[in-house]
């Protein structure tokens, strides 16, 4: 009996494996969005809510009859930040009818999936690795490249430094995760710093799971940093600044974090006091901007069933994923019609998005064009004040640092 049980179990497993995708996708007019995201792994904090709001946004439009009658299928897979798993998932779903776009998180994953993307002629969606901008391909970056964002922050620092009555340029420290993402802003950012005369200290890279960051902070402080740019997905930047606060460094040094920096419902909620005064450079709306965004709040109220107050900055990211896809789909449908809709049509459509305010202010003006894979070249600066992220600038054009670096 026990033996038969095993055989049976095995059979069921194989059957389920073989019959999976067919049963899910009904024969409606659909276009598919594949979200290979990390919901339980290293960057779950960022990706989890973003993916949920993406799905909610699609639901919202589907309920209104879809995009010109085409409904959007959202396929979300938890990859646990594991390249092999994600690849396997992609291979499973790549034959989904009218799969137009695969959203991937993680540098290694993006690289591993790219040959398949080329073969399938669809769009790959990935966060801000500037290499994709430097070598135009089918990968679209759903943010401003990290180096551009870093450079914009350098500009702001210099401005701020001079506004405070100092002359010349400030000394800037950089601290981040010791992984591919963590080193990315430096490629191009370093060149830009040299260009505008900002003295950039050696980067301080720390292991992803560090408990405390005193050592690196102390060293940057000892080298006389006036500004420190912190990378890492929240709560890491929050933890870094919290440690700096405990060391009393926040009084002397202005901390600036990148897009994935303190989130209003994560780091800011936990350590408002320590973070007070820190600045976040972001290509997505955050804080009060997110809370005041009319469509997003509407979608949130309808689908998320939790108070709007729990909406994070990363909601803007998920929303912008969905909106870019929807706009692209609209253009593609207009250009080729549903019958001929495929990844290539979507690819062409994406390159026509330049200049549109696709996300109604959740991000800057869209910049996808035949010569640009940046979602937007605009970034906005926020300051953490009274446990909330408050905008201190309007959308500002970030410098093009990607082109400065030799990839």
């Amino acid at each position: 009996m026990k033996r038969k049980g095993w055989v049976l179990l095995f059979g069921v497993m194989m059957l389920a494996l073989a019959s999976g995708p067919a049963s899910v996708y009904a024969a409606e007019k659909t276009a598919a969005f594949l979200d290979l995201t990390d919901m339980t792994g290293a960057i779950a904090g960022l990706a989890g809510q973003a993916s949920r709001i993406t799905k909610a946004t699609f639901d919202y439009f589907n309920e209104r009859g879809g995009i010109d009658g085409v409904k959007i299928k959202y396929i979300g897979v938890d990859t646990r930040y594991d390249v092999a798993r994600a690849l396997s998932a992609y291979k499973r779903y790549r034959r989904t009818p009218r799969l137009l776009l695969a959203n991937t998180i993680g540098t290694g994953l993006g690289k591993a999936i790219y040959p398949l993307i080329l073969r399938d002629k669809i769009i790959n969606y990935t966060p801000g690795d500037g290499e994709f901008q430097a070598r135009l391909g089918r990968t679209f970056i759903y943010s401003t490249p990290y180096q551009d964002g870093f450079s914009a922050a350098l500009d702001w620092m210099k401005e701020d430094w001079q506004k405070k009555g100092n002359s010349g340029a400030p000394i800037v420290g950089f601290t981040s995760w010791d992984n591919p993402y963590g080193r990315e802003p430096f490629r191009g950012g370093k060149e830009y710093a040299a260009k505008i005369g900002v003295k950039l200290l050696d980067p301080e890279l720390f292991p992803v799971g560090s408990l405390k960051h005193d050592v690196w902070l102390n060293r940057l402080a000892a080298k006389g940093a006036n500004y420190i740019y912190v990378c890492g997905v929240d709560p890491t930047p929050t933890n870094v600044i919290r440690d700096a606060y405990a060391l009393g460094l926040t009084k002397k040094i202005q901390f600036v974090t990148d897009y994935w920096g303190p989130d209003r419902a994560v780091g800011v909620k936990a350590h408002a006091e320590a973070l007070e005064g820190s600045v976040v450079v972001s290509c997505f709306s955050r804080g009060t901007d997110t809370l005041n965004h009319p469509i997003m709040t509407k979608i949130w109220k309808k689908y998320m069933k939790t108070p709007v107050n729990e909406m994070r900055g990363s909601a803007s990211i998920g929303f912008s994923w969905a909106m870019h896809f929807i706009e692209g789909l609209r253009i593609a449908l207009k250009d080729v019609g549903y019958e001929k809709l495929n990844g290539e049509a979507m690819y062409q459509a994406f390159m026509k998005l330049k200049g549109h305010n696709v996300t109604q202010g959740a991000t800057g003006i869209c910049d996808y064009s035949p010569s640009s894979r940046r979602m937007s070249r605009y970034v906005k600066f926020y300051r953490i004040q009274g446990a909330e992220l408050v905008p201190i600038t309007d959308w500002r054009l970030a410098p093009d640092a990607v082109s400065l670096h030799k990839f």
Partner: protein
Amino acid sequence: MTEFLQLLISGLMEGGLYALLAASIVLVYKSTQVASLAHGQILAFGAIFLYIFLATLHLPLVIALILAFAATALMGLLIERTTLRPLIGQPLFSSFLVTFAVFMLFDGIFQLIVKGGTLTIPHFLPAGTLHAGALMVPAGQLCSFIAALILFGILGLMFRYTKVGLGLRASAENHQLARSTGISVKQIFSIIWVISALVACVAGIATANVTDIYYTLPQMGIKGLIVALFGGLESIPGALIGGIILGILENLSAGYLDPVVGGGLKEVAAYIMLLLILLIKPYGLFGLVRIERI
């Protein structure tokens, strides 16, 4: 010099946390020969329980602490009863793998609770930073460190002078002999898991006080194993000293070697040191050298 001392102090504080976690792993290994990966989760859940009782249910601190300890102890007991007891007498690596499975099981629940964010336990340890000249010690961390030392003292006394301690030591040496003298080894296993879960709970609360509860907290478990190995898997004083040495080493290597090699050395230095130590002392710094007879 100041920098060196500062690194030393930071290392000492971090090492205290490592030591506690390592001690909880050592306790289990010493008496059951199972190196547990599940302790990362026990640690994380210790903190989660306190968070639930303190921040969500708004119970008074003392009651919340007691309840958190009780809940963690229960969790340890449950893990022992449901997964490890049926595996007594089976290959040890099956037990090891089962602790990994337990880790995954609880990791799912942990992610459900934390939702990729941060939970902050309301600070009950003194805040602020103590200054001694140019040196700085966060007061909360100092408190945890002292608590860790006291806990180690209590563990030592318990092992030395109580009947349960005697039973624990006896069954750690020889299960069968212990049973023949009337010690219920199963009961001892349960007790050891409860004690170990309590130690891990303290470690979790102390760690969360420094780092908050965020979604990579359970991965401390692997660090705990490394530290336990460093001191010798069977030695509780080894866990303390190993933890502190590792904490200091990590900080020193981050402090002095990082600029030379280009960063990220903090963890790797610990691993290199571990390999070196094991090559010199194959059973860790204080591990029992097993006498092998053919």
